[in-house]
């Protein structure tokens, strides 16, 4: 019996034809595992983002609670699990504690999801749109345009992304769109590169010549035939870049370049938490930090799973 080896996936060494089937099974299961896990996490986070406001027990931007027509101010720096008794048998529970201004940490985390995901989504959309378009044009048309744009893109790609994002964020200021633009600038080169290299390998394939011979004009060839195939190459990268965008957003807010308070944001709360960490109030920063990690993990896992399925090399060799 010949030894089957697997060059990707779980790398399991199996012996025998029966083993061969098992290898394939395990490989797809492996992909599925990460993909499923990732999707589950993401679903939870997205759910929080969408339904967030209705789920939060308290207003994440207010440090007082209105019961009836009286306003009670919430004590700051309550540890997780604290309860506060108001008059008239009303008892408030702060599952994850309150922050330094008396706002409920749980509510802030849940609401933060919406902001963070929105910024990351818009940023990814912008950078993908610009990067892909440029990559398509540059790769297909070639020549001086290609060389010039590649030069600019390579320069930007080599450059520390965070520093670039800081510069643009400082220029534009606070707000969802501004932050998203600042982050988007960082990722344009990676989409550009991938699409361009996919286009380069695609355009030398015989079917392109065939289309040209048939009289199809360049824009149609480019957008109706090459583009969809080229897009496969970025599918696996999209979630990873999304994850990166979340981290960059957190970093920008951490440095104070992001949102304007009192909008809840994980990175910003992490920065606040840092100030209170040493005095023992760990929950203010710890929970937002965990949310960042969780969300990013979710996207990474999805990206992994997709990566296995949508590997461009496998597709073309099909």
């Amino acid at each position, binding site marked *: 019996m010949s030894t089957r080896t697997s060059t990707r996936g779980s790398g399991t060494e199996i012996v025998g034809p029966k083993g061969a089937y098992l290898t394939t099974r395990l490989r797809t299961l492996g992909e599925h595992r990460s993909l499923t896990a990732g999707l589950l996490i993401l679903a939870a986070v997205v759910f929080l983002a969408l339904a967030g406001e209705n789920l939060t027990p308290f207003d994440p931007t207010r440090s007082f609670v209105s019961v009836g027509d009286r306003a009670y101010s919430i004590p*700051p720096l309550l540890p997780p699990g604290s309860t506060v008794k108001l008059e008239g048998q009303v008892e408030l529970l702060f599952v994850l504690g309150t922050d*330094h*201004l008396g706002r409920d940490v749980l509510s802030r985390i849940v609401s933060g999801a919406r902001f963070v995901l929105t910024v990351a989504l818009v940023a990814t959309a912008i950078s993908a749109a610009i990067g892909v378009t440029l990559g398509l044009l540059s790769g297909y048309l070639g020549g001086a345009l290609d060389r010039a744009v590649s030069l600019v893109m390579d320069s930007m790609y080599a450059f520390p992304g965070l520093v670039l994002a800081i510069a643009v964020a400082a220029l534009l200021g*606070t707000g969802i769109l501004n932050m998203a633009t600042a982050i988007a600038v960082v990722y344009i080169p990676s989409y550009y590169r991938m699409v361009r290299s996919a286009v380069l390998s695609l355009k030398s394939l015989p079917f392109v010549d065939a289309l040209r011979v048939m009289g199809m004009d360049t824009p149609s060839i480019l957008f109706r035939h090459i583009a969809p195939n080229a897009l496969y190459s970025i599918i696996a990268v999209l979630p990873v870049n999304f994850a990166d965008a979340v981290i960059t957003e957190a970093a920008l807010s951490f440095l104070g370049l992001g949102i304007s308070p009192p909008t809840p944001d994980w990175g910003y709360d992490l920065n606040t938490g840092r*100030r209170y960490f*040493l*005095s023992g109030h760990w929950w203010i920063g710890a929970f937002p930090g965990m949310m960042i990690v969780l969300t990013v993990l979710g996207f990474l896992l999805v990206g992994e799973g997709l990566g296995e399925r949508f590997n461009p090399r496998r597709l073309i060799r099909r």
Partner: protein
Amino acid sequence: MVKNRAISKTATLAILVVAVLLVVGGIAAYYMTAAGPQAPTVKRIKETLIIGTTDSVQTTLDPAEAYDYLGVNIIQNMGEGLFAYEPSTTRIVNRLAESYTISSDRKVWEIKIRTDAKFQDGSPLTAQDVVWSWERTMKLNQDPAFLIADLIEKAEAVDRNTVRVHLKEPFEETYVKALLSTWVAFPVNPKTSPMEVVKPPKTLDMIGPYKLQEWRPGEHIVLVANPNYYGEKPKTPTVIIRFYKDPQSLRLAVERGEIDVAFRTLSPADLKDLLNNPKLQVVSGPGIAPIRYMVFNVNKEPFNNKLVRQAIAYLVDRNAIVNTVFMGRFAQPLYSMVPIGFLGHKDSFKEIYGDRPNVERATALLRQAGFSETNKLKMELWYTPIRYTPAEGDIAAILKQNLEASGMIEVELKSADWATYRTLFREEKIAVWLLGWFPDFLDPDNYVRPFYHSKANGWLHVNYANPDVDRLIDQQILLPTNDRVRALGMIQDKVAEDAPIIPLWQEGQYAIAQPNVKGIVLDTSQIFRYYLIYAELS
């Protein structure tokens, strides 16, 4: 195969031994080098004192130009003027001035200079040096120059040790001495001082307990005792001022004993923690640097309407800010632009608006001004996140809540970094913003004139002009003390009623030090005198 194993075993053992040695040696070296110099234990006092701060020198160490807290403070330790504040009091005493007489019209002062004072290079101080230094400051005309440029009409050296000063107006005695004790009036050595601003990492030759040994921008400044100083030698021969980037690093440094003193600025939460730490001492003092306030550009709608401003004055909850952000003990609510502890301070805002938010009165005023629950006043409240406290955003959030509690105001919070912020209010693009004020000199005049006098408050762009107030401000510096206090009281009442500026709070000064450190004095002068501090070795 066996050979390979044997070699690797020896190699592993060797590596282990080296590693252990390195670690042990390292720990020893670390504690040795971190704990202080290997000075013989004969000396009772530490040779070198390390002070940590989050401030940095934002301008230069040239007294004609320095205008930030740390720069000025270091100059205060390297130089001296004719007069100075006596530590722990608010009295101004003679330093380089031996005596003085004032003419009957109060416009001419004759000041006798000490004969034993010498510059760092050994040359004795003369009256000509004093006059030259003042002329230099006024010629270079940098930011703080106005402190003496607005005071002195002409100065001349009558003889080697007498300076005759012709004032622009017959100013009150304490006022004149206060201005002459500011750093811009410090004599500098004409032989070595150029007629241009001296840039980092250099400074000028002045007369003082310390001189500058080294300045690595962004890292540290090293001061050493000035052997040619006529006065008392500093308690600690060498002082290192180490810069930290944020309050957490500073706190960690003092907690772990990496520095002897931490001064400016720890966050209130950390301060509260450290107060409970038996291994450190906390020294506190009256704080006026900075005072914090909210400004309206009274040319802008609807803040041109006094009723709106007054309504907001009724709504702000100073206690909420003090109790949450400052943990209830590291700041005080401020009810006048003249800080607590100053001559003539009056809690005018408290007298008119109370010390608790009064939502009923506020809504009544807003209604009068034409606003209601359905026709809300929509406004932006601006703040700048880094310059003052790291909790600026939180403070703005509290104020937003305060104002929206009326049900008739909608506040949008906006922020910008300092450079943009300044541009925004200078170009009158914003209507309501938060600001802070560090005193130039310690006199109540420095807390009313720059804000309320129509000829002096142009920098603030508050656009407030009240001729009665102008008149009172002009008068008060010329009056004898009791009358002056009355005049100041009237000014504070008037401006509280007009409310173009709403004072909010003033913060205390706090220094955290190792238990063996003595001599820290935190007084109203806000000068942190390194030359008084020393650390005892057991």
